[in-house]
């Protein structure tokens, strides 16, 4: 808390020192200029003519959507079944792959720091790339269909489940692990008795959470030909 003396000899209090104040202004200035610069790039790349009639387009779209045509609904059963399968099987596959990766990535269970960085790379790559992009790639490789969707969902889930699970593993109590190691248990036994029971609740929670996200994600996979709900 800087306290300075005014010309009249009275002590004055300000929240920040003059230097801190100027640095603050400077940071704001830099931030605002960055924002304006970005805005300019976007506005240069935008056809404002199209934006002007946005209201008309929007009302047009909504008026065509309302009322919903319920007669069409019976045709949706199959796509919905496929969507559910993509989400469920994809999640299951993803979890199976994420499980060992998480154990290799957690600081306290990894066999070697090099393996740890490899596992972390897998997790980051999987997290960086949206399932829609995975699906797009897989459709060109496997052809359109449910399988591409399942694998896309699985590949994206590895990173999500893997990250949350390895964080949970790093937060376990070390003493039970130590106690199991002291009985002469092997590495795998230490994992299954000391670590696994402690992370099981977190693991179940993470899996269900990801399954929920995947149901929503798999509805849009149809856009690129993996699954069906949107494209019809």
């Amino acid at each position, binding site marked *: 808390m800087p306290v300075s003396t005014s010309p009249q000899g009275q002590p004055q209090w300000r929240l920040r020192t003059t230097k801190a104040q100027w640095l603050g202004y400077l940071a704001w200035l830099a931030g605002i200029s960055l924002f304006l610069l970005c805005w300019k790039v976007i506005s240069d790349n935008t056809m404002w003519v199209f934006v002007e009639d946005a209201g008309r387009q929007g009302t047009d779209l909504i008026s065509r959507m309302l009322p919903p045509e319920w007669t069409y609904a019976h045709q949706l059963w199959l796509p919905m079944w496929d969507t559910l399968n993509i989400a469920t099987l994809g999640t299951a596959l993803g979890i199976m792959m994420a499980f060992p990766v998480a154990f290799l990535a957690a600081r306290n269970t990894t066999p070697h720091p090099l393996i740890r960085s490899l596992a972390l790379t897998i997790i980051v790559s999987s997290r960086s790339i949206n399932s829609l992009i995975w699906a797009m790639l897989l459709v060109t490789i496997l052809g359109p269909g449910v399988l591409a969707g399942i694998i896309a969902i699985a590949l994206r889930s590895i990173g999500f489940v893997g990250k949350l699970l390895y964080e949970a593993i790093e937060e376990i109590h*070390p003493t039970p692990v130590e*106690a199991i190691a002291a009985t*002469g248990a092997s590495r795998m036994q*230490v994992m*299954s008795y000391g670590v696994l029971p402690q992370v099981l*609740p977190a693991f179940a929670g993470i899996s269900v959470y990801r399954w929920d996200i995947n149901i929503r994600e798999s509805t849009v996979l149809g856009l690129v030909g993996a699954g069906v709900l949107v494209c019809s």
Partner: protein
Amino acid sequence: MLKLSGLGKRYPTGDRALTNIELTLPKGQVMALIGPSGAGKSTLIRCVNRLVEPTEGSVTLEGVELTRLSGQKLRQARRSMGMIFQEYALVDRLTVMENVLSGQLGYVGFWRSFLRRYPQSAVVEAFRLLERVGLPHALDKRADALSGGQRQRVGIARALLQSPKLLLVDEPTASLDPKTSRQIMRLIRELCAERELAAIINIHDVALAQQFADRIVGLRAGEIVFDGPPGELTSDILTTIYGEEDWDTTPEPEDNSVDERDDPTPPTPMARVAAGGAR
């Protein structure tokens, strides 16, 4: 039976935990290790079963040099050293029986233990031990449903199921009330007599140590400063171990366990070594 010579430990941070420890423990002897927090008591007993790697010196158990063992051999050596922990170190979400049976892990293969298919003799022995520590009815309870004293009994049963020759006991009573503490110490003492086990008990409570141990070793700043029978522990020697304090007007320094409960050893290296198993 157990012989430590020239044992030393320096943590990667540069802190010296133990210096030149010389100690011989004959069969069947119960030895109490006393000393202030941070004196290296926990590190010493963890160096014996190599949950903490000693940086110099040797540990010999029945003629086998432990410091150079690795993998399978180290696991076999750990089997013959049962360990009992301060905060019981039970796996909370497993049942009492599973916790006791985990003492057999050094003897059975991975899949047998994963599927909980333990040999019949091991199950019988585990149940006998539960009866011996007075908890046969708790068999299917989860470990976190038990009280502190009960959990420590389960921890003792687990250690004994290893059929150890030596017990390493780390602050068995630090989280228990005075009455339960005495019961637990008596139980350990009786079990050692029944099975002719040697034991190193690392304990804060000097009165308990004097009452239940055959021999007392005082540790200060990583060095042994006293070694002798309980009767020779005078207030002068307590001053050497713990520093200046009026020892005679305090009837029994029993409250020590309350304010010195926290373990001074840095947890991270220990945890890493434990999880890494034999490395």
